[in-house]
């Protein structure tokens, strides 16, 4: 079992979700995060004082997938999240020792 984590632009979520559903992903978890990277943030001005906001809003998407599906999920995710402009984000894959569904206690592939 693998955990696929991707940092994406928030407005791509709908596309990503639909694309993943299409390739059979039945569950995922998202988190609101802020990213710092090549994409610059923005400035805000309050009563003439300018602030630099370095971090930009991103979403983290996590998908637990069977090892055999990882390639497909990764490809699908990358394609659906891409806009081609700076700040599209990163994706990484971690190995999992163990996965379980809390409701039933099922483990491994059955759990996802």
């Amino acid at each position, binding site marked *: 079992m693998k955990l696929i984590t991707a940092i994406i632009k928030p407005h791509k979520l709908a596309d990503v979700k639909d694309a993943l559903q299409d390739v059979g992903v039945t569950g995922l978890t998202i988190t609101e995060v*802020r990213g710092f990277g090549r994409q610059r943030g923005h400035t805000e001005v309050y009563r003439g*004082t300018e602030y*630099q906001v370095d971090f930009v809003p991103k979403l983290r998407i996590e998908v637990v997938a069977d090892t055999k599906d990882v390639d497909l999920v990764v490809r699908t995710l990358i394609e659906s999240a891409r806009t081609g402009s700076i700040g599209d984000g990163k994706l990484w894959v971690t190995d999992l020792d163990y996965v379980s569904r809390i409701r039933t206690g099922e483990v491994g592939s059955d759990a996802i």
Partner: protein
Amino acid sequence: MDTGNIAWMLTASALVLFMSPGLAMFYGGLVRQKNVLSILMQVFMCMGMVTLIWLVVGYSIAFAGVATDGEAAFSLGGWSILGDPAHYFFARGLPLDPTVGDLAAHEGLTFVFQMMFAIITPALIIGAFAERIKFSGFMLFTALWSIFVYPVVAHWVWGGGFIGSEIGALDFAGGTVIHINAGIAALVMAIVLGPRRGWPKRAMPPHSIVLTVLGAGILWFGWFGFNAGSAGSANLQAVNAFITTQVATGIAVLAWITMEWIRDGHPTTLGAATGAVAGLVAITPAAGFVGIQGAVAIGLIAGVVCYLAIQLKTRFRYDDSLDVVGVHFVGGLIGALLTGVFAVQVLGEPILGDAAVGGSLEQLGRQAAGAAIVIVYSFAFTFVIAKVVDWTVGLRVAEDDEVVGLDLSQHSESGYIYDEAEGGAVTSLVGGGSAGPASTTTGEANLGDSGGVTRSAED
């Protein structure tokens, strides 16, 4: 003017001014978080800019005819079309002079009470182009509209112009002048600007119904000044207008949520607040002319019909973002017409023959004629102004600016900074003192990447 009348008109004027921040909250809650300040800002601009325009020429255009012994600047076959813009130019002639005696306070109060109306009318239109208008475009549009549309229509109906004097249409507190006028302008603007990116497929739910309900509460409160103040004195007609305002509004709330309960399965808070505004709009032209029973009827009809009317935009595919057409145009029209049906002789002037309660077909016709003229004029002139603004400074923000939100792209601000990371450690002071003509849109990567660099405050 006696002290009681002055006391009431001062209060009423303050109440109407208070409606503008109320409207700002009402509309502000309905947009997505990234655009809330743009709404508040635009309403404040009406409070600022229209104050200036009104004292320079607006008041003259609207009311100079009456004050100067009935002489209008332009008239057509005896029908007064325009007040003389030079008459009170820059408030010069306004006789706030104690030696003039009684007239002075009355004129001053008319000037300022009507100014508050001139402020809130263009503010109503904001709901139609919310979340996508360029700030500079908004400013120019509102300025032109407040010179060429609002005071003209106000003159026709209230300032001695032909709709009030010759056609004889009744408009107690602005069903035609304000709500039909602003509502039709809203329709034009929604069409000219086009829908928001993603509408109607993508969801754009209100970011804070709490704020909207607060705004509705302030509007309801302020509307007593609007309607009961339109009697011009602390008299029986003011009392009547106050009561009918409360009654129609309460009934409209009930009517709206009943419609929702039946058709959508749930009565909603947003529905209750919207129903209240619909009721307030619809009773506006009628408040001083109809009795309590008439108010019940108007509230009921407004609640039901406006509820149905706001569904039209998805059918006809114009993105009237905050339902100005469905609520203000339709509500105003309902009120304008029903004033002809339910006006009661004994209140105010004896108007409709001898029936104790009830209007007349004739008066209904007058009401319809008045409304129709304003619809045509407002539609045409709003369209022309919109196009002029679009060709010059532009009306719509760039797509990127729309995605980022108007708060950041137009005003370099965020409405709320709730989390510690954003409010504290993440931001850092760039320069003390004045920031200089900075821009949020300089497309430079802050880590020196050599790749293609685009601006992307949100994405």
